[in-house]
């Protein structure tokens, strides 16, 4: 069997259910693949792992992947199981925020690591400065939990529909205490959770073939997970070595994830790519990418896989 090491971009959770399902249900085995799934975390930059040869493929958000490309690490999107973005800002309703214009003078928690660019792009579109003050927003580098909102250190924080938002609700807050702004609705959504490999490797036909089989099996896993969310969540839970995940949370996450993968057969929609690029290029004074990337995606793998 061919060996494939997949670097996730976060800890084991239902966000990656498709891959765990494919592993657990033997879809990878059927394709004669021996897949190792490497969990990630806030200290792991998947492109770096890829560059160091620690993994063969990675999952990544496109802003980060394109940044790596510009820094001289030619990664290529070979499949895009996530159609829609799950990123949003969640605010306390009692702060009086009803629209992005009300952000002025507020404190907002943002994820960095490349995820800040859609936000900056959005703010520059709204004409709001991001260096604090009366007319701007004060930006905090938010850690990866929802404490800043619950402790009211921030008026709004970044959340994923499938994860952090659920955590806010879990802590007893009701939905009508909150206001949310989905990046998707604001027109600044970027592509999330794509599958990437190194350009140089893709020139090798054997590797290409391996990727074709990998993507095929992974998509099979995703579709299975969409159809059987509860079973998928259990599979994820079984694979969590940290013992930190809870059943209820993973069940809900799986349900939300299914909404994001729903529109995708795995193949990247060039229009989505162009929208992502233009969002990133509009990121204000210090953009993460400076020019339109060439060759950052390919359909060759998905085309082969899906036929």
């Amino acid at each position: 069997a061919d060996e494939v090491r997949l670097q996730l971009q976060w800890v084991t959770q239902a966000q990656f259910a498709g891959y765990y399902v494919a592993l657990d249900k033997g879809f990878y085995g059927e394709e004669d693949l021996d897949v190792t799934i490497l969990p990630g975390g806030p200290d792991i930059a998947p492109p770096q792992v890829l560059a160091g040869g620690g993994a063969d493929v990675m999952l990544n958000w496109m802003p980060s992947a394109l940044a790596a490309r510009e820094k001289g690490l030619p990664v290529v999107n070979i499949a895009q199981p996530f159609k829609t973005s799950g990123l949003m800002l969640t605010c306390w309703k009692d702060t009086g925020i009803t629209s992005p214009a009300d952000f002025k003078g507020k404190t907002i928690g943002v994820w960095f690591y490349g995820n800040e660019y859609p936000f900056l792009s959005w703010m520059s579109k709204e004409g709001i400065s991001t260096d604090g003050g009366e007319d701007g927003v004060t930006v905090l580098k938010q850690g990866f939990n929802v404490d800043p909102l619950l402790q009211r250190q921030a008026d709004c924080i970044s959340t994923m529909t499938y994860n952090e938002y659920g955590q806010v609700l879990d802590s007893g807050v009701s939905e009508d205490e909150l206001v949310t702004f989905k990046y998707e609705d604001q027109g600044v959504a970027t592509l999330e959770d794509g599958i990437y490999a190194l350009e140089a490797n893709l020139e090798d036909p054997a590797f290409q073939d391996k990727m074709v089989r990998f993507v095929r099996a992974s998509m099979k896993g995703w579709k299975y997970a969409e159809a059987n969310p509860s079973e998928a969540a259990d599979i994820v839970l079984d694979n969590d070595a940290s013992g930190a995940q809870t059943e209820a949370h993973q069940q809900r996450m799986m349900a939300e994830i299914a909404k994001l993968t729903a529109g995708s057969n795995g193949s990247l929609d060039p229009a989505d790519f162009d929208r992502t690029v233009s969002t990133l290029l509009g990121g204000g004074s210090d953009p993460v990418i400076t020019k339109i990337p060439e060759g950052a995606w390919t359909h060759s793998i998905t085309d082969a896989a899906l036929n």
Partner: protein
Amino acid sequence: MKTLIAVLTVLSVIIAFWYAACLPMNIKGVLTEAERAGAEVTPAGAKERRDLGEFGLVLDNRFAIPATWAQDRPRLPAPHQVAQELWKTTGAMVLKGKMMSKRSLFYHGWVTLSATLLGFAIGTGLGILLAVGIVHSRVMDMSVMPWAIVSQTIPIIALAPMIIVVLYSVGVQGILPKAVISAYLSFFPVVVGMVKGLRSPDGMQLDLLRTYNASTNQGFWKLRLPASMPYLFASLKIGIAASLVGAIVGELPTGAVAGLGARLLGGSYYGQTVQIWSALFAAAILAACLVALLGLIERSVLKRMGMGA
């Protein structure tokens, strides 16, 4: 005995203080929850309370006091909450025969401990070698020592991911990358302590060997090494605690799949403060045990050397 009484007294004062501190720390969260549940809270509305003093809130809402010690996700968990969580993830697991399950701190503790011990061994070995070099070679002393200090001003958490990636790229995986980080943190105290120790013999003791025309080797084994033992153990105790921290830091960029670091991080992602605190305490208890173990070894070694006064 006297020590025990003193420690217990101090501990009980700290615990009492801790319970008291839970009141102001948790009151806002408790009041918000209570309000949601329909209780009468003064003043009403989380936004109104945001800028009020915590002590005033406690006084105005005395009914909420017990709840500050029983929150699900408190800002400061009460001691018994931490103790319960610790028990649930250790003793209770053993009773259920699931000592090595993923929800048991024994499992995570062992994962961390193994990396700690390996890293400690590497770091100590390296530290001692460096110290020997520094003491015997002027060049090493003059050129390496300042850079050893500089190396400690580098934030390890920033380097850790890179160390891991670089090690990955040369094919080193598994426990070793974590151990390398843990070694990086533990070698410094050992170098410093050991250099001090190897240099501790006074002029007369060195002169004595000179009159015997003892070789450098003999000087090392018969004078410098034995003289350095107390210093070595003092720095080993610091080193093993540093090793543990290193192993925990090293767990974060390896996917934090298992180990006390993973528990800390997991707790942090999901706002499980009780889990964070119990992992923290588990780490500190582990460190305390390791240090105590070293203390025992020290006692018996020094005693055998005749220095156990």
